[in-house]
């Protein structure tokens, strides 16, 4: 966990990730995040955590306390607040990361459902594009039995919606369909130059935008280890 070594090895099967590469990529992103203070993280990230498979069970309990976190209280005292918890999970089928997310209201009982995700989470310019995919659009409810390894949390006030829970618990969560991820990665990046240290940043840039998860500038500029 805490070896701190930033192994930025090249990938054996880009755009795909093996479990070991995914693990290394998550560690690298967590490390990068840790080197930025919360204040430096624009884009509203409130925390990022690395969770390994063995820890995932205990994590579910810890998340209960998360709501009592002082920072969260400050933010939620007066206003309805939407917290979005994003999980990055390796799909054993597609062998690419999948972005799961859960919405939690604080101080407000909001409506629940996919409509609310489109209303509050998906930026305007992505709505049509996402809704035109597949049976129900590019976001589905899913019930994962996956290991979630990286936990990112983003808080926003005055926006919000809904709640389905963590993939690891087998509970409902939203996810962005991963079936085009590999093609998209291959289109924007050159397999030679992508490493475990940069894969997830590129991936977040591709996948995160559509569900309001933006890569804070500080993660890709000076503070962190160089992305390339």
């Amino acid at each position: 966990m805490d070896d701190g070594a930033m192994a930025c090895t090249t990938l054996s099967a880009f755009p795909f990730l093996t479990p070991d590469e995914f693990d290394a990529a998550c560690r690298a992103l967590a490390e990068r995040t840790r080197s930025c203070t919360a204040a430096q993280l624009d884009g509203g990230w409130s925390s990022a955590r690395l969770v390994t498979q063995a820890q995932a069970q205990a994590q579910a309990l810890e998340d209960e306390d998360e709501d009592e976190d002082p920072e969260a209280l400050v933010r939620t005292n007066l206003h309805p607040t939407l917290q979005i918890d994003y999980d990055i999970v390796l799909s054993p089928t597609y062998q690419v990361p999948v972005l799961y997310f859960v919405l939690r209201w604080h101080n407000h009982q909001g409506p629940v459902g996919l409509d609310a995700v489109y209303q509050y989470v998906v930026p305007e310019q992505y709505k049509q594009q996402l809704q035109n995919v597949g049976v129900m659009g590019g976001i589905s409810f899913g019930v994962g039995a996956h290991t979630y390894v990286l936990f990112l949390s983003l808080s926003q006030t005055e926006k919000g919606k809904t709640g389905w829970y963590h993939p690891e618990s087998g509970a409902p969560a939203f996810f962005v369909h991963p079936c085009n991820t590999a093609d998209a990665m291959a289109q924007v990046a050159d397999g030679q130059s992508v490493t475990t240290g940069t894969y997830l940043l590129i991936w977040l840039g591709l996948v995160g935008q559509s569900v309001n998860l933006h890569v804070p500038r500080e993660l890709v500029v000076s503070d962190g280890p160089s992305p390339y």
Partner: protein
Amino acid sequence: MDNSASPAAIQKSIWDGRIPLEIVLAPAESRSYDKTDAYLVSYPRVSYLPSLLPKLRAFFSPYLIEPGSRHHYGWFAFEGVPLKWHYPVGLLFDLYAGADPATKSGFGSDVSRETAAPFPWRLTVHFGDWPAEDLVRLDENGMVMNDAFINSVKEADFLRNGTAKGIMTLSKEDSSGLWKAVENVDLPSFQRISHILLPPPSQPFRNVPIRIFLPLPPDEESGSLKVVQSPLSPSVPSSGVQPSQSISPRSSPGMQPQTIGGVLHTLLPNLFPSRRTPVLAKPVLHGAVLPMSAPIEEVVRSSAYGDGWAYVVVRMMG
């Protein structure tokens, strides 16, 4: 039965397979509490529970305390555990019902097993208090269920071919037809469409879509199922060498079909110390014990559920 059964015959008997269900309305939602008549149905293994909801809603409507509840508010539980509706009922039965799986020698001769059989399988239907922490909500038009099914089909397709282009290029009629065929348990229509998706028998799968469900701890509260999934090549190097990722799946010299026992031994060595003989646990599919020697690609080609996956349940011996 054993070696003479063709893949087509096996597939037909799986699609013909039915489970007797006795469905009761949750007492708290009934005007007559637990005196409500039960709904009895012989239900196909490959079907999904929500397809029953419109009929159940109609059947129980005289009893419902909350007359405004809609059919898509309906959800099922077995012994208090909410059942994941996106799994076919045959899998749910194999997971939860505790029935002894059939073996090569059949059930017939063993009378004690008959009496222990949990038939009919007794489920409770609720039309209120949706367990939002356990189950994804349904919608009135069945779109959510259709979406879940197609996503699962896509995953299987991706594993078999290395791309999801097959299902993406399927015509709209065929893509909705595939789901309709499963809903209606219409094997001929299903075969026509899945024929478009499946690589011909001469062309091996790239990976074989199998999910393995681990035994549930007896006190397991809810849907936290433990599922094992890993890329599984249809063939592995002969002579028991470790399978390597770089090996081509095409059958070539030095390769042999990967078997169920080989997969279980590799992925779950503690539960399956031998790749030939079940010692501590046995693999169950469609209510029957799978032979350890069965090649995984043949198992999936003949015995997958409608979404293209073989869902193998691991049961402890004894």
